[in-house]
């Protein structure tokens, strides 16, 4: 068997070192290098690991470009294998590669087509069992995700072409390369590349053309990712912040616009494939310019549509031949959208490990499917199309712009449905549209006029011959555009160079790279800390999906030590427990807190602090002797001359002010007679508290305290309401709840002869909010806390280096060390007051 047979292409392997060819290669390589530089400096797609494997891709591209065509598919697969082993190590890498090759081999067993499909489905069933975390095999879970990402759709396209025998000339390495496309190792959510297009497009164009076409697509992907990051970092607002028509439009539109991330990533993927000789057709076609539902369906994620048409729409249409023509098309189309819905959930399952069928999800696809179907039927009735299109006038352009805008607004509203947990929530969100003022409407009218004007200007511009030529120019003729654009982006994204540039450049870079988690995603991310499993929200694939995959590997066994309660504490830890939690030892004392046992009565020479806090103070993710609480105790004892310092840690992951009031009102803390009650406040405490109180109301927990019961009553928040409505109703009362809680803590502390200390520790992932800080500090002072703050603790530090992981922003060992040093330093400043001599 010849492992490297000749491949019929339109490009010759002769003259590989021709000077002209080498020149074009060098320019392409230089541009690719700039691409990686930009991706790295702007931190675009950083979760994918693309910049980490950039050297592998650059070496592979160079080698690939100077070997005969018949060896290229082998190098293409080898690149993928190298990245897999680099990212996953030998064991997991072998699982992925071995598993993939087994599935591919099954497609070629001497069995009937139907039996092959059954066999593949059985294998997928096994993988699904692993993926759904039914067994505790974390490394196999991750491997199953990657195998599924490569095979979940492509294997069916492959089997389809095998059945119809439409591809005769594919070599073994081409077949392997089809599944093991190296960009798929970086992006789990991957465009459904058609097998026939993959084989037929291979080296069919001039290299000069497809190299530059690849660079153009990658550049387009970068632009989409920059737009995404700009919107994500600056304009996205949460559902809780939606209060009127304008904020509803802002929320809906910006969330829909986040699809730029998906198109950006897909352009990167298709562009990379193009550089390796797969000159595929475009995957998106200016979808925001769609003027009808059918038009949108044809422009957005074209590969997905083609996959659905090929495997389902056409076969169904032919199967329904006996049905009356009037019904045949709508029935086929509706069935096609039903399948699309199922397949979206199927895809989501492999990424998230659950199969979240919800009413809102189903309704989304029913509405979209119905709109496209009705639109198709109307279009099918006026099928005669002109070859030479009539010259459009201004009125035609204005109507087109209004259609685009209308469709954009409709899709934005549909996006809010898709991301709503319940219909109730969606209806409530839409109901905010009834609140608007004349000023609001005037503002919207001005935006509308501005959009129409910009649209008309764009129509005029594309009529200019030079611009028209530019748009339709051959890729190879556009190097003079792409190269300077890449150099410019690489320059302004470099922090050193950026500081010498005019202010506008640094403002631009800052708005793009200021990658603090925005409010919307912070809510998603934090929910995962406090709950065992996510409950399936956040379906817009544009944000946290990569984090989700990685998170499932590490977060789950806390429930082994947690006891759920129905009171305000919501959960406590088992006393005297000793478990390993994600490789970290978690040991609790007799009171159920992560600390050693202390005597109830302190020695005379002891200064005792009772620390109350949340997951930061508990030291989630680090060993006990690496927590800042442990380190501070140790450091203070080294400094103290006469006194013994004890810090009793009563903090607990997921505890907020309400739980801390509940803690302090029980005997647990003051039975130890602490001299000081050390309360930790953090950035964004009010938002966390808001979510927690909303949780209590949503779960129907008894609020116990008359003050809280009164707040619930006055705000009108009820258990039956949607989550957003509860939060919106509670929002005006959060400041008062904080004040009340501080008063309770101070009162209890003073009555137990313990001086309260308010220590403000900024969180690593949140942006500092001066107003909130001042408000909290004022309350603390009012109720007699000694106030200490650690503002600026992370200045001049890359916070990523002190976080546990991208999906867990708790401090790591280095972070705890930093916090411990700072706390020791500030506490020693209050030496006398705190009896630390």
């Amino acid at each position: 068997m010849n492992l490297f047979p000749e491949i019929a292409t339109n490009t010759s392997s002769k003259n590989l070192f021709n000077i002209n060819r080498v020149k074009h290669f060098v320019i392409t390589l230089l541009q690719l290098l700039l691409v990686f530089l930009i991706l790295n400096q702007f931190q675009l797609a950083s979760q994918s690991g693309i910049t980490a494997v950039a050297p592998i891709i650059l070496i592979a591209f160079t080698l690939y470009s100077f070997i005969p065509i018949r060896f290229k598919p082998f190098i293409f697969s080898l690149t993928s294998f190298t990245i897999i082993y680099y990212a996953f190590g030998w064991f997991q890498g072998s699982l992925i590669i071995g598993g993939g090759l087994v599935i591919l081999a099954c497609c070629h067993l001497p069995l009937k087509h139907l039996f092959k499909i059954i066999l593949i489905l059985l294998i997928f069933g096994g993988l699904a069992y692993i993926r759904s975390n039914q067994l505790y095999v974390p490394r196999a879970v991750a491997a199953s995700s990657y195998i599924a990402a490569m095979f979940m759709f492509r294997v069916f396209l492959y089997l389809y072409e095998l059945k119809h025998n439409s591809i005769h000339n594919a070599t073994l390495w081409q077949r392997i390369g089809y599944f093991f496309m190296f960009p798929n190792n970086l992006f789990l959510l991957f465009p459904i590349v058609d097998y026939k297009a993959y084989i037929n497009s291979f080296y069919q164009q001039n290299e000069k053309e497809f190299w530059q076409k690849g660079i153009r697509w990658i550049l387009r992907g970068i632009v989409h990712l920059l737009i995404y990051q700009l919107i994500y970092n600056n304009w996205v607002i949460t559902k809780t912040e939606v209060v009127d028509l304008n904020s509803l439009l802002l929320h809906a539109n910006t969330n829909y616009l986040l699809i730029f991330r998906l198109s950006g990533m897909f352009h990167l993927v298709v562009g990379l494939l193009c550089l390796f000789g797969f000159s595929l057709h475009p995957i998106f076609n200016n979808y925001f310019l769609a003027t009808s539902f059918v038009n949108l369906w044809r422009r957005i994620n074209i590969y997905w549509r083609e996959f659905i048409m090929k495997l389902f729409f056409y076969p169904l249409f032919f199967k329904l031949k006996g049905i009356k023509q009037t019904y045949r098309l709508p029935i086929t189309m509706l069935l096609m959208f039903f399948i699309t819905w199922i397949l979206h959930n199927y895809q989501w399952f492999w990424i998230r490990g659950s199969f979240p069928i919800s009413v809102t999800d189903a309704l989304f696809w029913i509405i979209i499917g119905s709109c496209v179907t009705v639109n198709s039927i109307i279009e099918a009735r006026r099928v005669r199309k002109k070859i030479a299109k009539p010259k459009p006038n201004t009125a035609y352009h204005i109507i087109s712009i209004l259609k685009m805008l209308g469709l954009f607004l409709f899709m934005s509203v549909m996006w809010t449905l898709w991301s709503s947990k319940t219909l109730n929530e969606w209806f409530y969100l839409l109901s905010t549209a009834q609140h608007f003022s004349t000023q609001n409407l005037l503002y919207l009218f001005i935006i509308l006029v501005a959009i129409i004007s910009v649209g008309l200007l764009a129509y005029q511009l594309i009529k200019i011959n030079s611009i028209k030529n530019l748009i339709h120019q051959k890729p190879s003729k556009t190097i003079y555009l792409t190269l300077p654009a890449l150099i410019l982006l690489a320059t302004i994204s470099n922090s050193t160079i950026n500081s010498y540039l005019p202010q506008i450049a640094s403002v631009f870079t800052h708005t793009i790279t200021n990658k603090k988690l925005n409010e919307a995603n912070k809510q998603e991310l934090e929910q995962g800390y406090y709950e065992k499993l996510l409950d399936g929200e956040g379906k817009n694939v544009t944000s946290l999906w990569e984090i989700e995959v990685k998170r499932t590997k590490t977060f789950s066994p806390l429930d082994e030590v947690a006891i759920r309660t129905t009171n305000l504490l919501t959960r406590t830890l088992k006393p005297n427990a000793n478990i390993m939690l994600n490789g970290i030892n978690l040991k609790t004392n007799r009171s159920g807190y992560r600390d050693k046992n202390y005597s109830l009565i302190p020695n005379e020479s002891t200064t005792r602090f009772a620390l109350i806090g949340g997951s930061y103070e508990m030291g989630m993710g680090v060993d006990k002797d690496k927590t800042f609480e442990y380190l501070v105790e140790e450091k203070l004892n080294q400094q103290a001359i006469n006194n013994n310092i004890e810090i009793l840690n009563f903090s607990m992951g997921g505890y907020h002010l309400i739980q801390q009031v509940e803690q302090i009102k029980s005997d647990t803390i003051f039975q130890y007679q602490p001299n000081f009650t050390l309360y930790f406040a953090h950035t964004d405490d009010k938002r966390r508290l808001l979510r927690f109180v909303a949780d209590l109301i949503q779960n129907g927990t008894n609020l116990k305290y008359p003050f809280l019961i009164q707040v619930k009553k006055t705000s009108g928040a009820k258990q039956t309401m949607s989550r957003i409505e509860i939060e919106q109703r509670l929002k005006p009362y959060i400041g008062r709840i904080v004040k009340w809680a501080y008063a309770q803590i101070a009162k209890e502390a003073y009555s137990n002869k313990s001086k309260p200390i308010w220590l403000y520790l900024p969180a690593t992932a949140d942006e500092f909010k001066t107003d909130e800080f001042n408000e909290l500090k004022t309350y603390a002072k009012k109720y007699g806390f000694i106030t200490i703050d650690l503002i600026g603790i992370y200045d001049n530090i890359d916070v990523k280096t002190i976080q546990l992981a991208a999906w867990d922003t708790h401090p790591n060992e280095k972070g705890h060390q930093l916090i411990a040093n700072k706390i020791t330093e500030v506490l020693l400043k209050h030496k006398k007051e705190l009896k630390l001599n």
Partner: protein
Amino acid sequence: MDNKEKIKTILLDGFIEVDNPNELKNDTPLISSGILDSISILQLVDTLEKTFNIGFEAHEIDRDKFDSIDLINTIITEKMS
């Protein structure tokens, strides 16, 4: 009337509007240019089946086979023979 003429007549009667029939040439791209879309292809297939008394299968509905009068003629000739 040969097959290509018949195909052209079908296209002009039901699918494409032209000021001058000569605008539609045997190699004019039909799908890649956007003149025919996936729905009109299915309607065209129905008409071709009836006119030429042949049958198509789902997997044959492909841009490579329906993108011009020449290509449509090729597949019809194959089926008729």
